[in-house]
């Protein structure tokens, strides 16, 4: 049994310790919003926050999570009210939407660390793949979210 803290709740899971966190979240815990894209940490579809840091979970054995607090897309906000989600709605960022949980978690982690990122900062932080080519709107969305967050503070 491993103990995990996910979206503010503590839970025990009975899985092989080498199971990637992604599959524990999706299949054992039932949080399917975090998605599988490549299995090699290359695409970012599986990004969640570990103690606030954007982390790719398809290559992270669950036994390595330790006591870190896990936040998934489901835990980012209860009602799409996070500034990144609000900006994503304003700009209709998603197309197929499959990568967007990961994109949003990466963007939210960037803004938590750097509330007013430059284009260069966004270039460095946002390495997730989007096959629909929503990159232009993701960039605009992050700038917009930065403004929304500043307004609410």
């Amino acid at each position: 049994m491993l103990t995990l803290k996910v979206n503010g709740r503590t839970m025990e899971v009975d899985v092989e310790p080498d199971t990637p966190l992604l599959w524990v979240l999706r299949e054992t815990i039932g949080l399917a919003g975090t998605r599988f894209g490549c299995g090699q940490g290359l695409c970012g579809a599986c990004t969640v926050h570990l103690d606030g840091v954007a982390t790719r979970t398809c290559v992270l054995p669950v036994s390595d999570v330790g006591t870190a607090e896990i936040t998934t897309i489901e835990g980012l906000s209860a009602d799409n009210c996070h500034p990144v989600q609000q900006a994503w709605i304003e700009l209709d960022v998603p197309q197929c939407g499959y990568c967007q949980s990961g994109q949003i978690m990466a963007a939210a982690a960037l803004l938590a660390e750097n509330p007013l990122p430059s284009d260069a900062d966004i270039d460095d932080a946002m390495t997730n793949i989007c096959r629909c080519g929503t990159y232009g709107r993701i960039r605009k969305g992050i700038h917009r979210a930065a403004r929304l967050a500043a307004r609410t503070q």
Partner: protein
Amino acid sequence: MSVSELSRRRFLQLGLGASAGLLIGCGSHELDPIASFATTREEQRFRNAWLHIDTDGGINFIVPSTEMGQGVQTALTMLVADEMDADWSRIRTTFAPYDPAFDNPSYFIQVTGGSNSVSSYWVKLRKLGAAARAMLVEAAAQRWNVKPGECSVANSVVSHPSGKSLGFGELAEAAAQLVPPDDPVPKTPDRFRLIGRPVPRLDTPAKISGGAIYGIDVNLPGMLYATVAQSPVFGGKVASFDKAAAMAMPGVRKVVALEDGMAVVADSHWRALKGLEALTITFDNGPNANRNSEDFTRMLEASMQKMDKEPFPDATQRLDVEYQAPFLAHQPLEPMNCTAHVTPTSCRLWVPTQNLHGAAAAAAVVTGLPRQEIEVNVTHLGGGFGRRLESDFVKQAVTIAKEVEQPVRLLWTREEDMQHDFYRPVTRARFQIALGADGTPEEWHTRIASPSSFQKAIAENFPEFSWLPVQALLGDVNMLAGLGTSFVQSNPFPYAVGKLKTEDEIMDIPVPNGSHRSVQHSFSGFCKEAAIDECAHAADQDPLTYRRRLLAEEPRYLGVMDLVAEKADWGKPPPGRFQGLAVHRSFGTYVAEVAEISFTEDGALRIHRIVCAVDCGVVVNPAIAESQVHGAVIWGLENTLRCEITIQGGRVEQSNFHDYEVLRLHEAPDVEVHFVPSAEPPTGLGEPGAPPVAAALTNAIFAATGRRIRTLPLSRHGLNI
């Protein structure tokens, strides 16, 4: 939408149980009369019911196309809602399950592809909405004893100048008693309230909360998990396997032999993967184990030698040039997957597919059940791009599900996906062009050589016609798209050249190929637009002026070129920057693009912006339209810059995103999209942005350096961003 709603059985129950109100349906063909709910059989009437107006005013619309990011869930709903003058906030949508009522009017099967959802349904869905509106108005008019023509509708409320008003919900039951109009008249464009506006997408809220259901998210009680290893060499088979070690792994339930691979079934995806790792498989590589990309290029080059050896001896100037583009993979971010539950008498599927007909056909072949009996429920698609027109993974899922009692979800790894795609085929073309004294082409001869997937597509979607040698009789009708003028070309070669001659050869190359966003146009848009640029330079004329002369009789080509020239400041790039132009029509839509580039001191390519002008007729939703063209440009760019599938030893060399390097955010240039105002019926948008990119970029590189790039990708020429 929850998984339980993604089930046809449930869907029928809901429909029959909740049949209060007005249900309106129509058959699969555009000209069928709109059938009254009251006149068809109980089950059939629900199946045909595209639109349900409930007594509480809620409206449910069955979206006939699959949503893969292109925005049809919103755009098609807008067509119906606008005609109804419905309250947009009261509309819910459901994806249509497999049923002939939802066949694509252009294809006569239930498939989403070819950028034609909006254009195919443009008339039909507006008539559907207009019929609903007319019935609701008539019901109100009868209630008030007034003439229908005196009533007006806004926001789901019918009003009369006397001050009376009733909501759609209050009128729904009375309207259901009326006979639908035979030929409802859609609105004139001046009365559109939604069409033409950037209405927010219906799917955005679920896609940013993690709540949208993709195929990979389907979760059924007792469900098992499967994954596969297929023969790495195309055409290979399993020679032998030893399952003892796999079966001893925790949670592994079953090892299943497939046509060209093995599947492991377990009680979790990770355990299935570990089981597969433990499985010993020996493949018989078959006849293709020594084939490679260099062979294929030699075959294509040899095909080109079948043209005239010494064409146009008397021409003032002549060009004789060859272009080639490589195999490309689709790689939608959601790997191939399908959930199946098979019993001796039933087969239920939950699958992200563009092709419900093909999925049912594949399941029918495996189970022996009639195709009409197969239940296909479609989820959101984590990208399609043409890959999900294929049903190879459906066939596998059903084969595996036959071996277990429980429902089973098959999910491929990225590596399987990369190495068992249906690739954009490697293609080569040769142009022999004679220019007259004024620099215009007097003769334009084209030869193209490529493998084809035409026969395979017919055999798999219409197994009953697989004996017909269509390809042998007709050739591949798509191969000369944009390059030829035969009667089968819906996108003919546009330039007014003296004499056009085309020839083609279908090559026997043992690599699966299929439709890849913009299909043949991704190559024809490149080679045609680069060749015409070569002609312009040979004639010492500006590439825009040169094209305008040869397209003088084509106002829509002129329209997009003039708009892009204006928006891109054609001919006046900032100092140190260079421009390239390309224009191409595909899926009915005209797109002109200008690439603006420069080179850094150390020789790296910088793409500053891609400016696009698009004529797609009426723009139903400008915000979605922009996103489609923008995304198609990014798609075209990565395929121009560096993406390439190569074959060695009969197998794909690339395996994941580290060696198939798709474009990422920091590399994506500014893309500007401008639309030509138009009242023409809408045409395609998902694909037409892609074909011009490659030539716009290579023409700009020529303008900057004098180097003419005729084979893709650019990374092969030392050109990198």
